[in-house]
């Protein structure tokens, strides 16, 4: 059951983004595809999935040339794909999402009891038994939705399973379940094509690794033959001297003080302080309430109790507008839903926070706006460089993330809250983001860095707060704590 791509080209309206990609995967293998943002990984996967058609090239499965014209075609060939973007029907139950088009029937009618049983059995066999199949999918956390998405791909016993950044929204035990699942599948002879920016995980899981750069394969290797540094060098075309910046000096005066903050069912008794020039990490398992806490501090939702204060700038914000006026900025975790207006251009998105500031005599000063946006595009290295009047949807995932960051840096905040800012972002760009965070902190900004990536939290922060089931359980110095220590505070006590 080998899968082979030969000389695959893809162009979007004249702009070529894949320039002849060759790829071979064998049964029982985990074929990892790594590359910088915009390298063409998702495009490659869409071609495998039948969602996009190649402009030139061939695809072979088991020695037969195939040409999937639609995702359905690809399914028929045993190729199932979990895309980077979630695609469940939020109004429907997990069962229905899993079995869509394949319901057990009795007398022509759907047998719901049997359907729920089948869904529960499926979730249990693949190790996701914690998910209740009767739940409405839209009410699950993003992580759980991702797990349902994976379970769905497994319904038809695929021979090739393609996963585009499946781990980006998973952490802790969910991540372990995913790895266990991948191993079980390969034991059964399934070929798993795995795209990820988490190189440690790739080295741990993959049997072979393909590095893509600018739409070309620039290296094929195995975990045994390579290292993280080597992969980064291949992806970026240069060596990254240092991933995390040097430690900063002692922090300044208190800048943001949160006391006894509470929202029912989300978090309670949350108190902490951010100081000027300080980067504070906030770690926790998915669902621990970090995002809700951030939204609450930012005034996007109201607290039931507690207090938020910004030194010299009010507090207890009743709206994001008030929080922004006080010098806060929040880069949210879900860029499609809360970070971007997908139908607008990159420029309109980046300029959204500064509309009033850019207004002269009632009208928007377009040249000023253009200047600011292009400075940001340059500073953050958003690709392609002349993207300002492109619809933002046409950027690759990582570049979209950078556009969100650009929007918030333009407001020149005094307190920056980043919720999973490197999710789906390639290593070289991450390093840039860490450098930007460091620069900002050195210029006196306070940063709250929410992340599910332990290494990142410890590497980029001065202090680490840990959240568990809606409570802060630890406040640790980053340079003197280990990953195991932090994790211990994050994991639920079993009683």
């Amino acid at each position, binding site marked *: 059951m080998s899968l082979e791509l030969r000389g695959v080209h893809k162009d979007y309206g004249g702009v070529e983004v894949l320039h002849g990609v060759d790829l071979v995967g064998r049964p029982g293998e985990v074929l990892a595809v790594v590359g910088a943002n915009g390298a063409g990984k998702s495009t490659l996967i869409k071609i495998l999935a039948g969602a996009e058609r190649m402009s030139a090239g061939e695809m072979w499965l088991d020695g037969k040339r195939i040409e999937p014209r639609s995702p359905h075609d690809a399914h028929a060939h045993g190729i199932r794909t979990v895309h980077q973007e979630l695609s*469940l029907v939020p*109004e*429907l*139950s997990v069962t*229905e999402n899993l079995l869509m088009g394949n319901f057990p029937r009795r007398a022509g009618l*759907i047998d719901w009891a049997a359907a729920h049983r089948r869904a529960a059995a499926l979730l249990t066999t693949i190790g996701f038994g914690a998910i209740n199949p009767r739940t409405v999918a*839209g*009410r699950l956390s993003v992580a759980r939705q991702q797990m349902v998405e994976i379970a769905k791909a497994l319904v038809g016993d695929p021979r090739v399973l393609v996963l585009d950044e499946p781990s980006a929204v998973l952490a802790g035990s969910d991540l372990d379940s995913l790895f266990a699942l991948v191993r079980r599948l390969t034991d059964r002879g399934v070929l798993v094509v795995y795209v990820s920016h988490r190189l440690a995980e790739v080295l741990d899981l993959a049997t072979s690794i393909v590095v893509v750069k600018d739409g070309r394969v620039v290296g094929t290797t195995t975990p045994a033959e390579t290292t993280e540094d080597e992969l980064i060098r291949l992806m970026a075309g240069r060596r990254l001297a240092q991933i995390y910046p040097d430690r900063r000096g002692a922090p300044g005066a208190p800048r943001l003080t949160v006391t006894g903050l509470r929202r029912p069912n989300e978090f309670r008794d949350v108190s902490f302080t951010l100081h000027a020039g300080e980067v504070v990490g906030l770690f926790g398992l998915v669902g621990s309430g970090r995002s809700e806490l951030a939204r609450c501090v930012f005034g996007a*939702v*109201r607290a039931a109790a507690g207090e938020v204060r910004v030194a010299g700038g009010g507090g207890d914000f009743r709206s994001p507008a008030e929080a922004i006026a006080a010098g806060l900025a929040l880069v949210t975790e879900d860029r499609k839903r809360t970070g971007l207006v997908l139908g607008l251009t990159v420029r309109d998105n980046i300029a959204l926070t500064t509309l009033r500031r850019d207004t002269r005599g009632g009208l928007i000063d377009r040249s000023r706006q253009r200047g600011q946006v292009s400075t940001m595009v340059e500073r953050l290295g958003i690709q392609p460089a002349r993207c300002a009047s492109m619809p933002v949807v046409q950027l690759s995932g990582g570049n979209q993330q950078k556009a969100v960051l650009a929007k918030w840096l333009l407001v020149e905040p005094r307190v920056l809250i980043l919720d999973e800012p490197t999710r789906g972002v390639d290593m070289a760009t991450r390093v840039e983001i860490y450098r930007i965070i460091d620069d900002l902190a050195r210029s006196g900004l306070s940063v709250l860095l929410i992340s599910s990536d332990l290494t990142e939290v410890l590497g980029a922060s001065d202090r680490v707060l840990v959240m568990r089931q809606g409570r802060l359980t630890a406040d640790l110095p980053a340079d003197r704590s280990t990953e195991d220590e932090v994790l211990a505070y994050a994991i639920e006590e079993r009683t």
Partner: protein
Amino acid sequence: MTGQLTSTGPERTGGGGRRPLRLVLNGRDRTVEAALGTLVVLLLVVAAATSETFFTPTNLTNLLKQMVTTGLLAFGMLVVILTGGIDLSVGSVVAFAGIVTAGLVSGLPIPLAMAVGIAAGIGFGLVNGVLVARFELAPFVVTLAALTTVRGLAFVYSDVPIAPDDPAFFTLGSAMVGPIPLTTVIMLVVFGAGGVFLSRTPAGRSIIAIGGNPETVRLAGINVRRHVVLAYTISGACAGLAGVILASRVGIAQPSVGVAFELDAIAACVIGGASLAGGRGTAKATLGGVLVLALINNLLNLYGVQSFWQQVLKGLIIIAVILVQRVNRVRT
């Protein structure tokens, strides 16, 4: 019973901290149904307490009869709304189906003439569906154009009312099944079968899923276009049936009938908790919405509220009802 109480999704606005609970059973939102049930009971109690006439057999029969047109249109509309679409053409289709049926009665057996009327509705629904699904045009505009064209065709067919001589033409519209009008029975059968269709058949589930996320449904190997066409065809069939029934009930078919009928049908769906964005709504709750509208009209009449004030109040009551729904429910 395996229901579960879940908290609401993140609130979209910065309102207070209270989060209403909602009861989701097998993916169905029982809170809406409960609220609607309460509303209907409340209206009935108010009606009984304030009007002697309300609980008379004649009035109850009226109520049952007067629900039929809105009811049939509302079921078809629900199916279309579930896909995320809308069908503005139903009022014109009612007129066309009625006038064609009445026109054919002189030459064809009555059941056949009626079948042609319904078939005309199916035909218009099919065209709407193909334009929406195959050519990917906005449902609002397609069915708005159909509203104009089909109305014109009804007048082209006959610009004067047609009153068939054969009294058998009235049977469908005036027969009773025990104490219940036959037309009401037909409407209830449509809702019953329609409810099973939506909740228990693959086609029905696909239509609902399409309203939630068409791309996902397509990826599941389901033919989205065909199901969208099916939805508009069902709406066309319901409108055709409603037109035939209305003509039989009035005894005269008029090409001018049915103006703005789509608005009541849409209102019934929304009062029943359907989301105009698609993917959410049930047959049962829509029937509840139809009942609420009929009760409002009936009560305003029984109280002798003058016509203009009826309009004023009707709009205000609709707002009040969906406001109450809103408080009881939650946006996903």
